[in-house]
């Protein structure tokens, strides 16, 4: 176990941080640099804040006698992803005044601001707090934002899972006052105040921890991609309880085959009032058994690989003091969103707006930022963020629909978007993400345009295929659960993965290595031609490429790198 090996540096940083304080407060006052100290940048993640720099500018900075163009990304904690119109307006203000003028919706149902310079960080966080929101634990080695299916058209179950997401998030929130001292309060409390983290302890978790809640048949949350998942079992219109999944996770490292994406295992079933206890004890099990020496093997998925699913369940049940019930049957259909107007079961309507790669900005005639600001000004319901980086204008009374429609038209938001584009996702990548090896958000839209032309020629324009791209292998856009996955390897170079299940239950498989961006369309075109010609009725692209032997099906995370075509060894 971990204690035989040297602890990772982050463990020391956490240990010595005085419950996540470090020297962040002092660093914020240093005028000569737009950065924080290296150790503090690890700690700010626990406060939802990532230090980044504009990589487009790196080459010129030193010559111009300036340090890197540092700025910060602040990620909100919005369990369940619902916002009031007033909160949306506040976020819009913050984007304009303190960040780069755009809002980024994420794959984990929350909002990120990019480009906040250090001097604007405290004002930005304070403004977020005034909007009754926060960024606590949105990143870092803790439980992060708890996501839940965006199905406001099923009022009762949606209400229940959003409430559950909030309760789980609250139960697992760090108890340290550091966040409020540093970002909200005017007075900084000097060290020495006795504090405790009853769930996490002084060094928190070995690595990040993610929880998702889904209501079948929707799997918009990609429940198997998270450390811990709850699949609602609805019986007679009520949630009878949840199947518990554990051990999912996307990240891996190129060239290290003992790192791999993994879909979670279904452990069993628990009652609604047992969910928080299950969540807490999965977290403490990971706290105690997770690898604290190698951060690349620190996620829960590796702990479960090491302990075995049965071993892990036994430890969990020992801690819980009760056994999980046998898992109940469920059926999932897809991990996408349903766009446009949908009637709810309570007579209200809900409009899901496609937001390409989650970027809320005014681009050309499609003025998302201004349009949503205008809609927030007249909207009486809520906004629901989806895990596909989209946004639902929820709970619209029938007589309010024309007003919303008029604004959607006025701001150019009502146009048709192809099925492929609706099912495409990209992470942020360049220029702000420090991990990116290749472009993603800035490149995917043009790639989709090229592929759309092929799809249209083949009569596939109406066919949904999930397509996801990330700039690095860490998997923010969950590329390993896409029927077509593209993962950055270097500038203009991607690995191409195929064969995931449309419903998010099966990982894909490496199909081609190091494909240049110019060659991606050529690589996919023969497969799409074959699909158009030879598919069976209702057959999904991900299933088709397996049936035709282009790739082997990935039956579990530890087989992700196995069963490759000759010459493709990772």
């Amino acid at each position: 176990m971990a204690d035989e090996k040297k602890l990772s540096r982050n463990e020391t940083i956490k240990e010595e941080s005085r419950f996540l304080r470090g020297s962040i407060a002092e660093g914020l006052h240093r005028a000569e640099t737009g950065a924080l100290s290296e150790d503090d940048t690890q700690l700010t993640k626990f406060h939802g804040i990532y230090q980044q720099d504009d990589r487009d500018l790196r080459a010129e900075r030193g010559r111009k006698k300036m340090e890197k163009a540092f700025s910060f990304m602040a990620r909100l904690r919005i369990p369940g992803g619902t916002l009031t119109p007033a909160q949306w307006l506040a976020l819009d203000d913050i984007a304009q005044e303190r960040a780069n003028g755009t809002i980024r919706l994420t794959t984990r149902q929350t909002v990120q601001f990019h480009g906040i310079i250090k001097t604007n960080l405290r004002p930005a966080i304070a403004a977020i707090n005034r909007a009754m929101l926060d960024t606590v634990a949105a990143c870092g080695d803790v439980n992060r934002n708890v996501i839940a299916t965006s199905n406001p058209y099923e009022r009762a179950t949606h209400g229940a899972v959003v409430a559950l997401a909030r309760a789980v998030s609250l139960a697992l929130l760090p108890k340290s006052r550091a966040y409020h001292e540093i970002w909200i309060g005017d007075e900084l409390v000097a060290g020495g105040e006795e504090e405790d983290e009853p769930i996490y302890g002084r060094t928190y978790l070995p690595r990040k921890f993610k929880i998702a809640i889904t209501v079948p048949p929707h799997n918009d949350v990609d429940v198997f991609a998270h450390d811990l998942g709850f699949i609602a079992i609805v019986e007679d219109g009520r949630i009878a309880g949840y199947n518990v999944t554990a051990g999912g996770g996307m990240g891996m490292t190129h060239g290290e085959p003992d790192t791999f994406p993994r879909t979670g295992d279904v452990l069993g079933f628990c009652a609604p009032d047992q969910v928080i206890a299950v969540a807490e004890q999965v977290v403490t099990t990971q706290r105690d058994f997770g690898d604290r020496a190698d951060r690349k093997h620190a996620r829960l998925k590796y702990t479960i690989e090491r302990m075995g699913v049965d071993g892990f369940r036994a430890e969990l049940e020992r801690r819980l003091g009760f056994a999980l019930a046998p898992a109940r049957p469920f059926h999932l259909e897809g991990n996408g969103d349903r766009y446009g107007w949908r009637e709810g079961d309570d007579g209200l309507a809900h409009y899901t707006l496609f937001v390409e790669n989650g970027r809320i900005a005014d681009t050309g005639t499609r003025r998302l930022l201004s349009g949503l600001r205008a809609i927030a000004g007249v909207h009486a319901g809520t906004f629901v963020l989806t895990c596909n980086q989209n946004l639902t204008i929820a709970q619209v009374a029938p007589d309010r629909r024309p007003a919303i429609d008029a604004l959607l038209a006025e701001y150019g938001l009502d146009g048709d978007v192809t099925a492929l584009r609706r099912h495409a996702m990209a992470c942020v990548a360049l220029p702000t993400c420090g991990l990116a090896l290749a472009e993603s958000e800035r490149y995917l839209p043009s790639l989709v345009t090229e592929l759309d032309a092929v799809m249209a020629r083949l009569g596939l324009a109406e066919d949904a295929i999930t397509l996801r791209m990330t700039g690095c292998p860490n998997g923010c856009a969950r590329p390993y659960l896409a029927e077509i996955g593209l993962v950055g390897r270097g500038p203009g170079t991607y690995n191409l993965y195929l064969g995931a299940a449309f419903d998010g239950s099966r990982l894909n498989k490496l199909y081609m290595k190091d494909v240049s961006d110019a060659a991606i369309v050529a690589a996919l075109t023969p497969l799409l031609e074959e699909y158009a010609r030879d598919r069976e009725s209702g057959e999904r692209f991900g299933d088709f490429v397996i049936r035709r032997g282009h790739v082997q099906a990935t039956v579990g995370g530890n087989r992700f790198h196995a069963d490759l075509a000759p010459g493709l060894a990772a």
Partner: protein
Amino acid sequence: MASLPMLPDTAPFAAEQIAVLNKVMVATTPEQRSWLSGFLAGYQAATAAPQASPAAPPATRQPLSILFATESGNSEALAAKARLVATRLGFAARAIDMADATPEVMAKASNLLVIASTWGEGDPPQRAIDFYTGLMADAAPRFDGVRYAVLALGDRAYANFCETGRRFDERLAALGGARIADRIECDVDYETRAKAWIDGTLGTLQALLAEAADADPAEPGADVIHVDFARGPAEQAWTRSRPFEAEITERINLNSSRSTAETWHVELSLAGSGITYEPGDALGFVPTNDPALVDEVLTAAGLAGDATLHAALADRFDVTTLTRLQIAEFGRMTGDAALIELGADAARAAAFIEGRQVIDLLAAAPHRLTPEQLTGLLRPLPPRLYSIASSLRAVPEEAHLLIGAVRFETHGRARKGVASADVAERRRVGETMKVYLKPNSHFRLPADPATPIVMIGPGTGIAPFRAFVQDRDATGAAGRSWLFFGNRQYTHDFLYQLEWQDFLARGALSRLDVAFSRDQREKVYVQHRLWEQRRDLYAWMEDGAVVYVCGDANAMAKDVHATLARVIADQASVDAEAAQAYLDRMRRAGRYLRDVY
């Protein structure tokens, strides 16, 4: 070619001599020609009659006070030249900075030469304010019998040209002074006229004194004249008319490619020039005009395609600044009644000049001009002064400049700063810049290296402070130092950021506060930081810190001054008047120094 000064074939020289002389003449400026004609006349006079030797029998050595009010150093330089001339003529001459003078003391002078520049919109230079205020006060002492004359410096591009000199002249007369020569008002091309006036005025004074001595040979207080024909203190080897061609060894736009601003860091090699400067000094840069603008001017004057004239305009004439005199002159030379009328109406002319340049005048009233008319209309191209941003103790034989590119649009035309656009757009590493040293003895590091310093320099105002901190770093000075810097955006406009980080780490800079105005909705400037830090700032002032301000004269320096007064009032619990007095005391003690432009 025929349009330029030329000796006729009939001149009493051999043909090849005429060719050589013409070759020289063609390349001369009006000043050079004027000087040459004066020189030849003088040479004629001096060599024709052997009787006029100045080394005559011993006579009394007359005192002369040369009082100057300087902002950029021009008055001071002229005062030094006047002193040299006066000394050679046998005066016991002193040059006195108004900052170090009082009206009471000066009222006791016998002979007084005042050289005063006007600053901004008709104000006296900052260093001269106390003297000026005292002289204008009701309680000012009488100047009965004081022989005086005033040389006024100004810039016709500004309103109230030579206002300060005019007011000194009138006030001295009102207080009983005896004006010995009419006041001269000099524009930016002052050198030739000023020198002629100084020679003439000192000659007049000498003659007056000689008459007085004849009448009363025993005038008290007179010394024996020691005529000294030896050279005075060495003048600066390189001047605006004979600048040093310094090689550009580095040239970097310090602003990010995302910035709305462009500020060029230029490193010049002074190798072989012998130029030695101190932190705080400036370099004069003799720029070249934008060739495209010269083309436009030539085209507007109907002279397109004249290559010789193009070269002359590019190198020697001010093709941007527009003055009322030029409107009137342009009207006279073309007989354009509308222009004559405009030039005669001060208010309308001022309104026309606002935001306009020479090209607008030529375009507004198209007339074909001869080359002589065009060059006659234009003023000489003035050099531009830039505070040196380096210390020789850190970078021997180099001078670094920080030049903000000036670009704006008025009346539908894109405009550029002459010198800044020259550097920003046309100069390249390996090429040269014509420079000369412009000492700024009033803006120097404290003599005692342990004295704390506070430097307030937003924008390009940071230049001399880089020199200060480099110098203190190189000499290991023990004094604390505190820099206030401001600009538009932290990420894109933090000039010399890595160097400040390094100086902080090494202890050469003790403290840094920054204000970036466009990073948030509310504008934040250096004065806001001064106010936030008022407790420590006042403590530094009480500890004897010298406070330096460099940069924009109009908004920044005024706001900083007002804020410093507020800081003092707040921290010392005194009223505004006492706070102002505190700053006045600091200024008089040389502890509140400004280099603003």
